[in-house]
């Protein structure tokens, strides 16, 4: 179309330009510039999209690998239960000095002199402090382990992890980096012995909040997000569909329904943080619900998602042709039967697509959750939506505020996980639309 139009213009214009200048060159130059602006604009947009994704992925793909150190740990009775009173006092096993076991094993493995304290300290710093709970849980779960030597896979400390992944520039002066030369030598020594190695990081999927990057994961936050999504789905889908059916099919056209319509359109554009204030004032202060609980987050996100679902559902109901309604009514169905037996099933793909997109938005929402106290340091999996929990995007926010290099990696890793969820949901919506959409 474009080509034909421009060639015809050119042919007819050619003899003219020789005689008098009507600025055709200038005009075509302007045309080319205008096009170039358009192309530049689109490329800028796509460039930023690519840059954004590249930043996240290049920073984050390493988070799915974790350096571990496998050491033969000797659970000596002298350390775990020096006074031999574990049968009578249950607390002994919980409070024993487990790091000592790690130290002994490490000293033996590296062959360093146990009396040189600074060296020993440097060596033990290579292993994550989370090994204490790991060993404790092992012993508590199975006290018969005491006295035996068992190979245990421990997490490497975050800086060693970074160094082993090659993220720390070892040419920098030793005093300016957190990994010392001695530690690097040991690291390489351990790696050669096959003791220290990289493996797939299951921890990032299962752990909860932790101040130590290597022991921090999104598992707990993901469960909180899952609770909230469940609440949003269970509440917003039926309420949204019911509201749309009333507004689209039953409501008389008057000022009140006009007001509701304007109102819903506005609610869709209210800043999400305002919903957080609403949740704080109504659910927590007025109704006395617990702070930080997934149930409050779910309610707030439900209110936020409802307008999206209502707008999508109304569009889907509107797209069902009136002939379907007339046919059903003509055969003697009541209005309610017409809608629930015929119109609604036909509108279902559109409704579900809108719902999934609304859920995806709710999943990535952070701001309102900050206000209802979900910025919490939650270590354990919440057993129910009433217990304190946090959410995936909030976890990302909290990690983004941490200064350590290893947390940047974790943050990006968590973002990748979040984005994968969103991509899956949106792909589902697209597939649903492709598979079931009908053109009337």
């Amino acid at each position, binding site marked *: 179309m*474009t080509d034909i*139009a421009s060639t015809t*213009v050119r042919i007819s214009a050619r003899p003219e330009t020789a005689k008098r200048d009507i600025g055709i060159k200038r*005009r075509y130059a*302007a*045309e080319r510039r*205008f*096009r170039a*602006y*358009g192309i530049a*604009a*689109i490329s*800028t*947009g*796509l460039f*930023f*999209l690519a*840059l*954004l994704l590249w*930043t*996240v992925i290049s920073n984050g793909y390493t988070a799915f690998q974790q350096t571990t150190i496998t050491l033969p740990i000797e659970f000596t009775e002298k350390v775990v239960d020096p006074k031999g009173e574990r049968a009578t006092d249950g607390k002994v096993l919980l409070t024993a000095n487990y790091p000592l076991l790690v130290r002994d094993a490490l000293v033996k493995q590296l062959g360093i002199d146990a009396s040189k304290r600074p060296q020993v300290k440097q060596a033990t710093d290579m292993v994550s402090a989370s090994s204490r709970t790991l060993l404790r849980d092992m012993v508590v779960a199975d006290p018969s382990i005491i006295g035996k030597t068992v190979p245990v896979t421990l997490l490497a400390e975050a800086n060693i992890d970074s160094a082993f992944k090659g993220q720390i520039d070892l040419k920098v002066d030793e005093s300016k980096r957190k990994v010392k030369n001695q530690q690097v030598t040991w690291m390489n020594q351990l790696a050669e012995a096959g003791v220290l190695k990289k493996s797939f990081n299951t921890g990032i999927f299962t752990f909860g909040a932790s101040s130590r990057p290597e022991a921090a994961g999104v598992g707990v936050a993901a469960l909180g997000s899952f609770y909230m999504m469940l609440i949003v789905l269970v509440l917003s889908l*039926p309420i*949204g569909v*019911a*509201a749309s059916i*009333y507004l689209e099919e039953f409501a008389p056209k008057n000022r009140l329904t006009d*007001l509701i319509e304007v*109102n*819903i*359109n*506005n609610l869709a*554009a*209210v*800043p999400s*943080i*305002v919903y*957080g*204030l*609403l949740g*704080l*004032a*109504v659910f927590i*202060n007025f109704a006395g619900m617990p702070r930080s609980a997934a149930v409050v987050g779910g309610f707030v996100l439900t209110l936020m998602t*409802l307008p999206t679902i*209502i707008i999508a559902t109304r569009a889907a109901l509107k797209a069902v042709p009136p002939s379907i309604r007339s046919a059903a009514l003509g055969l003697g169905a009541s209005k*309610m039967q017409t809608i629930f037996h015929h119109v609604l099933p036909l509108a279902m793909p559109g409704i579900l697509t809108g719902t999934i997109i609304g859920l*995806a938005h709710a999943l*990535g929402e*952070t*701001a309102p959750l900050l*206000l209802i106290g979900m910025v919490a340091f939650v270590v354990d999996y919440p057993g129910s939506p009433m217990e304190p929990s946090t959410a995936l995007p909030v976890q*990302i*926010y909290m990690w*983004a*505020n941490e200064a350590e290099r290893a947390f940047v990696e974790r943050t990006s890793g968590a*973002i990748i996980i*979040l*984005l994968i969820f*969103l991509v899956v949901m*949106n792909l589902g919506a697209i597939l649903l639309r492709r598979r079931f959409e009908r053109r009337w």
Partner: protein
Amino acid sequence: MSTSLLLLLIVVIGFIAYFAGRTRSLALSGGKLSNLHSLPGYHGSYVAIWAMLPAALVLGAWLIAAPVYIDGSTRATLPDTVQSQGPAAVQLALGQVKSVAGGLLRLSGEELAALESGSANLRATLASKGVALAGEGDPYMVTVAKHFNAMTATNRWLMTAAVLLIAVAGGVYAIRNVAARFRARNQVERVILGSLIVASSIAILTTVGIVASMLSEAGRFFTMVSPLEFFFGTVWDPRFAAAGSGGASGQFGLIPLLAGTLYIAFVAMLFAVPIGLFAAIYMAEYASPRLRSTAKPLLEVLAGIPTIVYGFFALVTVGPFLRDISAQLNGLLTGDYQNFIQAQSVLTAGIVMGIMLIPFVSSLSDDIITQVPRALRDGSLGLGATRSETVKKVILPAALPGIVGALLLTASRAVGETMIVVLAAGVAARMQINPFEPMTTVTVKIVNQLTGDLEFTSPQTLVAFALGITLFVITLGLNIYALYIVRKYREQYE
């Protein structure tokens, strides 16, 4: 009986009622369904609704009302020494009594007797059962707690009996109504319609809730700080919301926050509008269908990315990049490698927010540009105008009101955006015009004032609601005006 079990029982009664109603209507039909006014399923649903709905409503009302009544009665039984200390002390004592009451249920008979005779320490006894008590606890609490427990038990018993009775009575009443010519379908449909209306009123309730909750909390704030000081104050320095500090100890000036909000939104629009608009024009007027079908969804991916990801992007990429490049530039020009752009600055936040807004501008404008009738385009091209001239002189003027509406909607997004500015704009409330320095926004301060442990009586936390209502009014105004323009414009060509 626990509430969830009671709820389950109601559902079971409902099921039984459904089948009872259905069977009865089938029996009444005499083997010929056409004898019935409504299908048997409707009769069943009618009976089930009568069995479940009133019982559930009573249960709900009871659950709300009973604790209020029990609390009131328990409060009255507290000794006068506590009553005379004012409402706060009574509230505290009530909380303690409740935890004592929870603990009493776990005690054995002898332990209870020991407590009542005063020979055992209340706190120690309860602690051994895993109930932590804040404070020592007084002997009177055991008596009051026993009263509380007795009332709770009676209440549960009464509630269970009443609810089950109502469920059964409703079912029996309804089943007696079932008759061959009974209009069960109309009754059921009326209930469904009612629930549809209730659902659609939630949208209204949300708005009412937003406005009412913010107004009441902001009202409390304005009793402590004068509205004049808030709306026209130029200094934002709220101090800490320390417990017991009481009274207004800081300054709550809205102006610096508003200035930061508008400035950052302005920079973002400056960035997003040209890019978004040109992208929309190119896609609507020039792009081949193939390019359009790939570029448009790709750009819209930007709109689907959570804002926290943009915030992170600003924090680790854009901010440091601007800081370093400004240091290099400064070094080249003056020899002094001092960065003149801060990592957290108006510019950083503005650019990243602009990236987020590109797809809003482009899709909204795209919709509006493609709505301009074909005839206008063809007429202009037919007169010999180039495509760009057509766009500039015909299409854009025709689409202008709609585009302005779209830009206003985008601006309202920019004003209400939170996570990007929280991570990229900084927290210092300053009034200045240098875009390379950090400024803060209304949304950042709402988050700042409301995270952490709070006390809901201090102006430091309540100010968040005053900020919230300001934000709500601004975005609402922008939205209503934008929707009005867009709607009006759409009608022109229809």
